[in-house]
């Protein structure tokens, strides 16, 4: 009984809590954060349960109001959407637990609107992933984006300007996507993704289909921060409050990447995508440029949050690269990287928030080796996430890069392979820089004794989510064969 309604339950949980939080938050302000934790926790449990039932059964198609698919709107819970929903809701649950302390300190008195907006944004993201209707996807995209702009605007002094720039670029992207949907609607007469998949092969040579594909890739590429369209990302992530960044950075770009997967591999299929022009290869080259650009810019940054933001530009490149390879290994690598990067980025941004609370800044040039004794567990989690980001075995980050590399070899695509290797070295440069500051003595200052600081660890409510995410990176690293086995079954060809 519950299985057949599951896709709707996941989205409705967030609707319910986005209403409950203002209602109860007005009465008692301190209730907002626990309610948000409960809401995202329930959604995470639903997603986990749904993914387990999917593995034992078949995809779930939920028709709203009982109207069958091409006429009514449906939610589709198949392998791809189930996996993404599970990843984003699980990460959001941990971020919500962590954000209690940072939100109380960074914007006191505004918790109720903050958490209500966060729930609305999660509703938008879950809706984008689950819906089986292209126009419905646009509506959910705008729900998620509008609440995302508001969340980014809560923060430092320049935050509203960063959010405004994101709004202009993001809305223009959304509008181009809508135009692409319009083109597809005029040639096929349907908006349902499954219905349209069946019709598009008959229109392989149609210019409108190619134009629609390009418009959709550009429009969604803005949201995914694909290389030339990434301009909004560094400023938004740097100036937004720590808790908003920790929520948006791991989730937002992944959801946009999900739409690219759905459009290129499912809706059009890789043969149709490349029928007129080598679009998937062009997307892959853009991803490569993004990987190199993001890594080099991250090395040049001194501010930890800004460095992580540029590193996001580069990491999203890996995911899109795996998509453009369009073979099983590349796909598995990209999907595993979605999971790994969501966990690593959430963990790193949460640590940046903790350091900001404790030290009042997250400026890497002012880090020193007293952090080692002051924040032993925070720094241990940081090291695990950073090493996983670089991609050293046996941590999770190594395996996603490994499967991506296998994918490039399968396609004999040596350019992409070289980019993966070079960028791993560049990642090592910017993360080892931080680890060196924290764990090594500074040889230039003639120190003989390491600096000692009094133990000053963050509160358990922040430390526990960070540590769990760091430990899960090790677990995923060891369990990668099982996860990849599941992911290879999802691959559509």
């Amino acid at each position, binding site marked *: 009984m519950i299985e057949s309604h599951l896709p709707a339950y996941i989205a409705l949980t967030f609707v319910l809590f986005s209403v409950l939080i203002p209602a109860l938050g007005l009465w008692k302000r301190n209730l907002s954060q626990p309610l948000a934790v409960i809401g995202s926790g329930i959604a995470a449990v639903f997603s986990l349960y749904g993914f387990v039932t999917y593995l034992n059964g078949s995809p779930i198609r939920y028709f709203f109001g009982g109207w069958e698919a091409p006429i009514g709107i449906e939610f589709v819970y198949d392998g791809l959407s189930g996996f993404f929903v599970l990843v984003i809701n699980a990460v959001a649950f941990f971020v919500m637990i962590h954000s209690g302390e940072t939100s109380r300190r960074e914007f006191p008195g505004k918790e109720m609107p903050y958490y209500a907006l966060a729930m609305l944004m999660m509703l938008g993201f879950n809706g984008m992933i689950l819906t089986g209707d292209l126009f419905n996807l646009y*509506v959910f995209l705008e729900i998620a984006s*509008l609440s995302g702009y*508001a969340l980014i605007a809560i923060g430092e002094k320049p935050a509203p*300007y960063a959010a405004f720039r994101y709004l*202009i670029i993001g*809305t*223009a992207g959304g509008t181009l996507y809508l135009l692409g949907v*319009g083109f597809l*609607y005029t040639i096929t007469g349907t908006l349902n993704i499954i219905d349209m998949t069946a019709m598009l092969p008959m229109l392989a040579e149609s210019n409108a289909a190619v134009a629609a594909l390009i418009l959709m890739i550009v429009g969604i590429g803005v949201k995914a921060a694909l290389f030339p369209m990434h301009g909004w990302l560094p400023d938004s992530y740097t100036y937004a409050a720590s808790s908003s960044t920790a929520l948006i950075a791991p989730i937002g770009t992944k959801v946009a990447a999900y739409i690219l997967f759905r459009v290129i591999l499912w809706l059009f299929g890789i043969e149709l995508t490349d029928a007129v022009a080598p679009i998937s290869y062009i997307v892959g080259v853009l991803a490569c440029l993004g990987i190199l650009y993001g890594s080099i810019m991250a090395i040049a940054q001194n501010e930890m949050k800004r460095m992580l933001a540029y590193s996001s530009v580069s990491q999203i490149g890996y995911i899109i690269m795996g998509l453009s390879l369009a073979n099983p290994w590349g796909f598995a690598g990209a999907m595993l990287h979605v999971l790994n990067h969501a966990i690593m980025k959430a963990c790193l941004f949460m640590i940046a928030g903790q350091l900001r609370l404790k030290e009042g800044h997250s400026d890497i040039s002012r880090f020193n080796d007293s952090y080692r004794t002051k924040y032993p567990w925070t720094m241990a989690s940081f090291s695990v996430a950073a090493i996983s980001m670089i991609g050293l075995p046996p941590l999770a980050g190594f395996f996603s890069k490994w499967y991506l590399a296998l994918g490039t070899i399968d396609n004999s695509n040596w350019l992409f392979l070289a980019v993966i290797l070079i960028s791993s070295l560049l990642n090592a440069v910017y993360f080892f820089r931080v680890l060196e500051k924290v764990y090594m003595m500074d040889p230039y200052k003639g120190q003989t004794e390491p600096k000692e600081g009094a133990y000053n660890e963050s509160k358990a409510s922040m430390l526990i989510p960070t540590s769990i995410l760091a430990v899960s990176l090790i677990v995923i690293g060891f369990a990668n064969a099982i996860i990849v086995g599941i992911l290879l079954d999802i691959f559509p060809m």
Partner: protein
Amino acid sequence: MLDFFTGHYAYWFTILLLCIGVYGILFKKNLIKKTIGLAILQISVVLYFVAIASKWDATVPVLDPNIPVDQVANYLNPLPHTLMLTAIVVGVATLGVAFTLLISVYNRYETLDEQELIDKIQ
């Protein structure tokens, strides 16, 4: 050839509006003007959807006793128009958020000129 231009004039106007919108977003320095450009861009897509659903010799999609239901060609397709109602609402909400952000920017920096803002932030 001339038919191609005169036969699609609704689309030419849509393309013109789209270009004006993109021009406003890219080249205007004032943030309010950028927002106006964004609104024009959105409206051009709305007009595109409205244009694809219109046709000659057809009536509104309400059952008319003079036109039997099996002659569907005599009714307009209502779907693009209803979709655009939603898109217009989304556009209004976007403008609302944009102006709220601009008020907040103006309160903090007392300017809405892009170059001055960038100078003040750095």
